């Protein structure tokens, strides 16, 4: 008897978690200003995915409400009201409709929508002229503009409103390329090239991240997609194609000497100098990039100095060794690196 009283008092209590859930949903939507969100799409591909996401949420919510309503009905029904209900005559019809027909219809619909979305996403980009090859490394992104002789890192510039073909592969372990506001995830697998396309509707910066656990600093492997107006993009291309200039001022010249003699060249390339290492990011125009250490901090003199002096402090486990430069050498090196615009 007590049990029944408890269950009949349930409606208010049952509504509570539902309301709490809705509230949590509203709060979650508020997160989009802090981190990139798939439900705030900024490009056509992400928009398709977001549409599908909302449809699935609506279908899932409707089914949840339906199931909860049935459960509530069962809980509220008084025991012994009608013994014939123990096996209602319509039970087999309910099983066939609710257990076979409905899942078949709902799942077929969802399947059709999903396939439709996948087909739309696979439509090849209009222009093949701009092919960007992105190579995953532990724990940074190498970005190559095929046909433009440009190699950069952790930053992909694209023209806004135009699709850009992206080819993904990996130098070491499996990574996954994900710019939530522009497209879904795609794995970067060593020995294999996966390709898709990026398109942003408007100029702006879009955060990306590695979405497959790739080692100790997986959490700090970010990138930035920068969509630019056509003019700005063309300017950027021309500027990036230039080799590094020989610095004019003496301090920076001294910095170049430090750069060439302190072991930096084992891993880094600066076009126009003798530095042709290929293990680390190319530095020809490093000063023009907005972030350091694969998107983990703004690119300024303080961060750069700290990074060069002890990269293991800022990103433990990354593959760049600490340097043993004197203060004078470090200042000169910083002056030189700042000329690499």
């Amino acid at each position: 008897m007590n049990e029944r009283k408890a269950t009949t008092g349930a409606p208010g209590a049952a509504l509570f978690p539902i309301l709490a859930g809705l509230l949590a949903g509203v709060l979650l939507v508020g997160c989009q200003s802090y981190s990139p969100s798939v439900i705030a799409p900024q490009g056509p591909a992400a928009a398709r995915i977001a549409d599908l996401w909302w449809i699935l949420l609506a279908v899932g919510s409707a089914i949840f409400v339906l199931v909860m309503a049935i459960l509530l009905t069962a809980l509220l029904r008084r025991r012994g009201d009608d013994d014939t209900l123990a096996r209602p005559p319509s039970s087999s019809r309910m099983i066939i409709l609710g257990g076979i027909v409905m899942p078949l219809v709902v799942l077929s619909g969802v399947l059709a929508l999903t396939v439709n979305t996948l087909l739309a996403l696979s439509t090849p980009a209009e222009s093949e002229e701009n092919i960007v090859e992105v190579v995953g490394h532990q724990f940074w992104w190498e970005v190559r503009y095929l046909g433009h002789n440009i190699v950069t890192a952790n930053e992909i510039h694209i023209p806004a409103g135009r699709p850009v073909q992206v080819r993904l592969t990996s130098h070491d372990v499996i990574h996954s390329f994900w710019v939530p506001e522009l497209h879904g995830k795609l794995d970067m697998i060593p020995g294999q090239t996966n390709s898709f396309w990026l398109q942003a509707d408007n100029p702006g910066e879009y955060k990306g991240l590695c979405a497959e656990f790739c080692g100790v600093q997986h959490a700090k492997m970010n990138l930035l997609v920068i969509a630019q107006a056509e003019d700005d993009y063309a300017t950027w291309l021309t500027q990036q194609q230039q080799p590094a200039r020989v610095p004019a001022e003496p301090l920076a010249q001294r910095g170049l000497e430090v750069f060439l003699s302190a072991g930096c060249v084992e891993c880094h390339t600066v076009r126009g100098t003798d530095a042709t290492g290929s293990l680390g990011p190319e530095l020809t125009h490093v000063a023009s990039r907005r972030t350091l250490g694969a998107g983990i901090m703004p690119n300024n003199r303080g961060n750069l100095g700290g990074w060069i002096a002890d990269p293991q402090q800022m990103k433990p486990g990354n593959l760049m060794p600490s340097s043993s430069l004197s203060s004078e050498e470090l200042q000169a090196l910083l002056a030189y690196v700042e000329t690499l615009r």
Partner: protein
Amino acid sequence: MESTATTPRPQPRQGGAGAPRVVPELTPDTPVEERLEALWADPPGFIGWFRALQNDALGGRIMLTAFTFFLLAGIMALLMRLQLVSAENTFLDPQVYNGLFTMHGSTMMFLFAVPMLEGFAIYLLPLLLGNREMPFPRLGVFSFFTFAMGGILFFSSFLFSAVPDTGWFAYVPLSGPHFSPGLALDFWLLGLGVAEIGAIAAGIEIIIAIMIMRAPGMTLSRMPILAWAFLITAFAILFAFMTLLIGSMMLELDRKFGTHFFDPTAGGSPLLWQHLFWVFGHPEVYIQFIPAAGMVSMIISGRCPDFRMADHDLGRPSRLEDALSVCHGLLLPFCSWRNHRCHGRRGPTRLASARFVFCRSSLSLRSDRRRDFSYLRGTELLVAQVYGQAPG
């Protein structure tokens, strides 16, 4: 060995079933219940505790051990939560954090969920099927000790500061010899491999118990639905864990014996590991879910007065459609493991990714077959045949 009528509580030399045994004579001064009790008792004392063969002792023991691992995994989860309380928290360094989430996930999957359900099955099956014992008590004991030893080997990685740190899925090449030198991944592969052998042994025992040790008159179609859930789960454990065990052995060969199954620089395929792993991983979800669903079905039908009529009684016979739906529930994941590789698809043939959704794509596999060696081909064909997949 034969207990005499004058001994009130005869000590049998061994407990459990299986060994031929002379049933003591029935005399008026020894109650038959008492003699039955003695006949089936486990050996006494501390040593006897290790020698216990009874299904209830063993089942309880497996569940208790699994629960201990569950608590350890829970502690690790709490540590991770502490780290995640605020951004840029320095409570755990990245290496420790990666070790913790790997240990937590692997423990929950291999040392808690599956053994817990198997312990439950071993504890409950004789009651469900109407017999006294499991068919091979010593196989059950073997299963318990391999599971416990595997778990201990796995956790001993903490003592050697070689904690596995590549995630519970251990994707190659990150878990391969080049990117994970040292012993960490060997603890993962060997410790869990031993525990998996225990899981397979228990699975075999559950299948045999259900197939041959039902009470007279209990046909498969009259069996309680929970027993059906255990049967199907045990088959799934057999196939899923076998595949994982093969994959683990191949990775261990790569790591210590210089083979190149998963090494892309030598013609191996990192995706092969993902296939082998998810042939295990996807059914694993259902291995955990189906027995729970079976329990709910049986508890509701047993405890709910509204159902207590005619064939809705406790332990009501499962109708064919119930049994079929349970079977279906576990066959499907074996066909759909490639869902988990959806992001690994090859670009231009995007139609291939649509076929993941149909649960039977093989087109995408072609991309990593291009440089296959015959042994890779052979393994995939084997996998394909076992699981009814048409190799692409």
